[in-house]
């Protein structure tokens, strides 16, 4: 891996950190619960990007297993929270 490739990978990690900061601002500020659920979904995608870039930097293909699990769990979590909100609105 050349030097310029490594520098560009570090710059992409910095961009992902900035976007994680913006997402956390929305998660603290968000007016409704649905905004926070959307922000949580975006957080899972940013974590997938982090782990993929880290695997490229370590030159190890075993890190490719982790984003599969994160994609599955984030989808199940989003659907579970929104179904719970729907049921709660209906019963109250």
């Amino acid at each position: 891996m050349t030097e310029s490739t490594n520098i560009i990978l570090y710059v992409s990690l910095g961009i992902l950190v900035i976007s994680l900061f913006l997402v956390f601002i929305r998660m603290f500020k968000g007016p409704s619960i649905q905004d926070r659920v959307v922000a949580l979904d975006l957080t899972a995608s940013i974590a997938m990007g982090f782990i993929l870039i880290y695997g490229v930097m370590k030159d190890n293909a075993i890190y490719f297993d982790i984003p599969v699990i994160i994609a599955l769990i984030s989808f199940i979590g989003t659907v579970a929270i929104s179904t719970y909100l729907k049921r709660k609105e209906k019963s109250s």
Partner: protein
Amino acid sequence: MITALLILLGSVFILLSAIGLIRYDDLYSRMQATTKATSFGIFLILIGSSVCFHEPYVYLKALFIILFIYLTAPLGAHSVSKSDKEGRLEE
């Protein structure tokens, strides 16, 4: 080099979706920003890192993740928007 450029472009797309999440002032606009741009950013990052490793099973896993994300991101957004709409109709 192509790996680094693809990964940088994907990170920029994820940053754009985070800016859209914080700048829009409606829940539906925010969901539109986070669903489309994030899927495309993860797609670019996956293509870049699988080109870096260049093995068959890595390409297969990347294809599986891309298919799963492009199937489930609209489903999750639809579920969240449906819960919000029913909540508004109840008021």
